[in-house]
């Protein structure tokens, strides 16, 4: 088991980073920075490696770092490996990104003030995972300051041994299958999972013909823990996915008996005291499930990617979680699904 985790920690994405043309004030323009970015890391943490390439050419002002891929601003709190798996249907090596030091798109990206913001996001995700697994986040809250620092440093340095030392004190455990179940192992049986579901309307055979993601509305960012029941049956990745995304597994009936009509009645009842204005329409329409519930049988899963690999669906899910999860104990799964265009809107 250690072997696979090592591969994950040592995994890196080769980046070729270009400074945005609006920020180039010198001739000749600077060459792109060639950086190896750890899969389990985050883009803003690369600042110290990137800055030296461009500092002499930047216009005056304060740095507010952000990246885009083919014009799509990149969400900095998503691990680098996940961004690559999600946005490059056909892996591009090196991955060509554009870096900006000015003009942060606050309307599209949540603020990032460097390492502190990334660390805050990481620690809170870890607490969230703890809460999902244990029903509270006492494990993380009770970490000593020095242990927390060591944990964070292990992420910054990509040091698995250091990480194992500090995270073993967390007792967030490993998942066991019914066969290997021991007394005292993971009690709640809930696995933290983040799903990134990219919906496309067009069909394509090869990944290189896949359409591009030009808008985050095309991707549903879903936080859905998986409950593992200790029933003694062999629980595979396929079983887990059917559980997590029942709306996309063709032929599978819907879980609830409620017809779609009832749900839209509930929606209309809510009219008073709404927080803010109703912008339901602008949120990714793939999130509003009604059109998809009626066409779930036509949905086609094109791709399932975890840590850069497309695992065989027969693999035991416990293996997938224990070996492929990220350091904050979430398993990130990228899914590309083709759904027919039911709605004109």
């Amino acid at each position, binding site marked *: 088991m250690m072997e696979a985790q090592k591969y994950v920690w040592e995994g890196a994405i080769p980046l070729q980073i270009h400074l945005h043309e609006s920020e180039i004030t010198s001739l000749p323009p600077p060459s792109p920075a060639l950086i190896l970015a750890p899969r389990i890391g985050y883009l803003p943490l690369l600042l110290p490696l990137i800055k030296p390439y461009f500092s002499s050419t930047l216009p005056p002002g304060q740095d507010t770092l952000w990246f885009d891929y083919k014009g799509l601003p990149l969400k900095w709190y998503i691990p680098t490996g996940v961004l690559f798996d999600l946005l490059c249907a056909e892996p591009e090596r090196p991955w060509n990104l554009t870096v900006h030091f000015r003009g942060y798109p606050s309307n599209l990206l949540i603020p990032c003030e460097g390492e502190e913001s990334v660390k805050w996001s990481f620690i809170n995700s870890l607490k969230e995972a703890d809460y999902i697994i244990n029903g*509270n986040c006492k494990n993380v809250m009770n970490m000593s300051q020095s242990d927390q620092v060591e944990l964070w440093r292990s992420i910054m340095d990509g040091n698995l041994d250091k990480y194992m030392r500090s995270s073993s004190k967390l007792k967030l455990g490993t998942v066991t299958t019914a066969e290997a179940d021991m007394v005292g192992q993971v009690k709640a049986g809930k696995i933290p999972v983040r799903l990134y579901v990219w919906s496309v309307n067009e069909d394509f055979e090869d990944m290189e013909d896949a359409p591009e993601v030009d808008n985050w509305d095309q991707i549903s*960012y879903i*936080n859905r823990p998986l409950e593992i029941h200790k029933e003694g049956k062999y629980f595979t990745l396929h079983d887990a996915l059917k559980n997590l995304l029942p*709306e996309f597994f063709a032929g599978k009936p819907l879980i609830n008996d409620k017809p779609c009509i009832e*749900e839209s009645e509930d929606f209309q009842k809510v009219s008073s*005291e*709404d927080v803010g204005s109703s912008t339901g329409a602008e949120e990714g329409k793939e999130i509003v*499930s*009604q059109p998809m519930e009626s066409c779930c049988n036509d949905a086609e899963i094109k791709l399932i990617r975890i840590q850069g690999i497309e695992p065989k669906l027969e693999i035991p899910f416990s293996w997938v979680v224990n070996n492929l999860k990220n350091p904050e104990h979430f398993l990130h799964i990228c899914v590309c699904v083709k759904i027919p265009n039911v709605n004109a809107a």
Partner: protein
Amino acid sequence: MATDSLSSAVIVQLKATADAPILKQNKFKIHGTDKFAKVIDFVCRQVHRETVFVYINSAFSPNPDELVIDLFNNFGVDGKLLVNYACSVAWG
């Protein structure tokens, strides 16, 4: 669990922590399909502050891009999503 109530409302209960002002009206409804960022903005406006720190169940601070419905399904208690707010970091 995965498919129900994706388009219906979630009841959010706000609770002041530490130095934060207490709101007279502390229960609100928000669409499940909205992001948590909407809740954060709402709290900022209600307490008249530029920044607030918000937590779920006095435990952790979720990512603003998370969907309210996911937070409710995963962490809701008694049919509500309990959001604690403070003007300085409460649980660091």
